């Protein structure tokens, strides 16, 4: 396997990326950019993204996964993170992937907040992706923050016997990650209606069974007028569960479905 960890972007704001070069030739050359969700959800999905990248590379598709500024292995601290920066990071990563792969077609795949970021970033991209795949995208920032706060309360209660914190007391952190006032303000403003102005030629929306917000995102994407495919995935994926507690990291059906979908390539 040809896997290259590297840094890109301006030195003071360097981003960490891992490029999985295609192992077989494929025409036209295709590439996939994997965009992380936020905080614990990004920790949770790391393994799945890595396996997905390896699988796609074996099928002849170049893949880049990367960490936004202030997250993961990239420069910056939790409180430096903003959605505005992350959208710029997606543009930068897209260019990096284009340079490395020479791909004629690039797909962005984003899970949860990563899905919302992909849709919003494509609207402002000078060089938009051919396709978007949004996996259980966040539809409403206020609802999402409420979910994160509840997950934070649950995680604390689960981690230390007899400990409880009130939902109202969760203000500037989410399951171990700092949330600045600016990020909080930006997150509250996230709304599926913003996704309608995406510039991709086609979009696939994946929703997990029973997950809220899917219809809202679907309606917004359909308003764009370009083709939208809606795929329902029969799993209940716990996005914030603690990896260390031996939970299933990579649901096989999710990996299979997404990799098959991306291997098919542009219609």
């Amino acid at each position, binding site marked *: *396997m040809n896997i290259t960890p590297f840094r890109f972007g301006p030195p003071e704001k360097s981003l960490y990326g891992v490029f999985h070069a295609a192992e077989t030739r494929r025409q036209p050359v295709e590439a996939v950019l994997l965009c992380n969700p936020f905080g*614990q959800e990004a*920790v949770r999905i790391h393994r799945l993204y890595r396996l997905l990248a390896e699988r796609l590379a074996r099928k002849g598709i170049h893949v880049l996964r990367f960490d936004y500024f202030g997250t*993961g*292995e990239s420069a910056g601290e939790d409180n430096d993170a903003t959605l505005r920066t992350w959208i710029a990071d997606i543009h930068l990563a897209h260019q990096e992937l284009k340079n490395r792969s020479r791909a004629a077609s690039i797909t962005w795949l984003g899970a949860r907040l990563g899905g919302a970021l992909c849709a919003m970033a494509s609207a402002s991209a000078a060089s938009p992706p051919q396709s978007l795949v949004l996996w259980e995208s966040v539809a409403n920032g206020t609802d999402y923050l409420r979910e994160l706060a509840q997950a934070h309360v649950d995680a*604390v209660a689960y981690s*230390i016997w007899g*400990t409880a914190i009130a939902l109202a007391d969760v203000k500037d952190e989410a399951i*171990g990650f700092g949330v600045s006032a600016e990020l909080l303000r930006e997150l509250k403003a996230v709304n599926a209606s913003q996704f309608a102005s995406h510039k991709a030629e086609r979009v696939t929306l994946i929703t997990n069974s029973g997950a809220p917000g899917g219809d809202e995102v679907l309606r917004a994407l359909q308003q764009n007028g370009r083709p939208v495919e809606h795929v329902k995935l029969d799993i209940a994926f716990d996005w914030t569960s603690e990896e*260390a507690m031996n939970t299933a990291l990579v649901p096989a059906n999710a990996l299979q479905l997404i990799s098959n979908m991306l291997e098919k390539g542009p219609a």
Partner: protein
Amino acid sequence: MAFGPHRHLVGTLTMPTGQEPGTTAVLLTNAGVIHRMGPHRFNVKLARELARKGMPCFRVDISGQGDSQSPANSQPFEQQAVSDLKAAMDHMQRVCGVDKFVIAGICSGAHNGLATAMVDDRVVGLWMLDGYVYPTAKTQKVRYMHQLKTRFLPTLGSWASSAVRKASDRVKGMMAPDSAALLTDFGHKAPSKEEFAATMKTLLDRHVCIYMVYSGSILWNYNYPEQLQDAFIGHDFVHRVRCDYIPDVDHTATTLQAQRRLIDCITGWALDTFAQGRVASR
């Protein structure tokens, strides 16, 4: 950066800026299956804090974890983890000229650090959060009291259903697991008390500084400050290691407050113990 005999390992080096780096470096490794950034990015935050205080830090993914590959001729998991951490030290030695290392690990990271220290003299310090645990008779009593105090009715209900289940198992002829099988840590089999005591003695005789920390997440197995001393009465090593029980911090540092507490804990200890020149003069 990629390193290791097959260039299959990936790590992130965080160097002090604006000051002479210390002569002792800190290695941080995976906690369970979490990649090298650590649970809730704890390892990144810790590495940057240590570097700000002058200590170089290398965060590594062992084989098959995070961004590291598995080598073609990989060994059994624990042996491979030791080989990987040795390779990390080799690499740092080449790149930074450092030849003394502290390995800091959480859970399985603590186990891997301990195993590496046993076979590599370059390890001069170990910081272990929720490493191997040895419950005592008092552990069970403390747990029962704590359970009753915090969740009285659910605890009584749980005990009643457990008693019924055990009686039913006896009728069906199913045996309870023996006590040795209970000496596990998140699925990892712990060494016997005798083996553990001998390991600690060996390392301490080699002047390895050891700091054990137990969190509030393992109420079932560790739940009062003097437990280590009680579990190893008659063993001199318990008086030669530092051991803290921090009940308001959890296994994976889930809150920012817990992260701050643990970062201060390890940074303070590492600087006091391994600041430039001190280890060499011990």
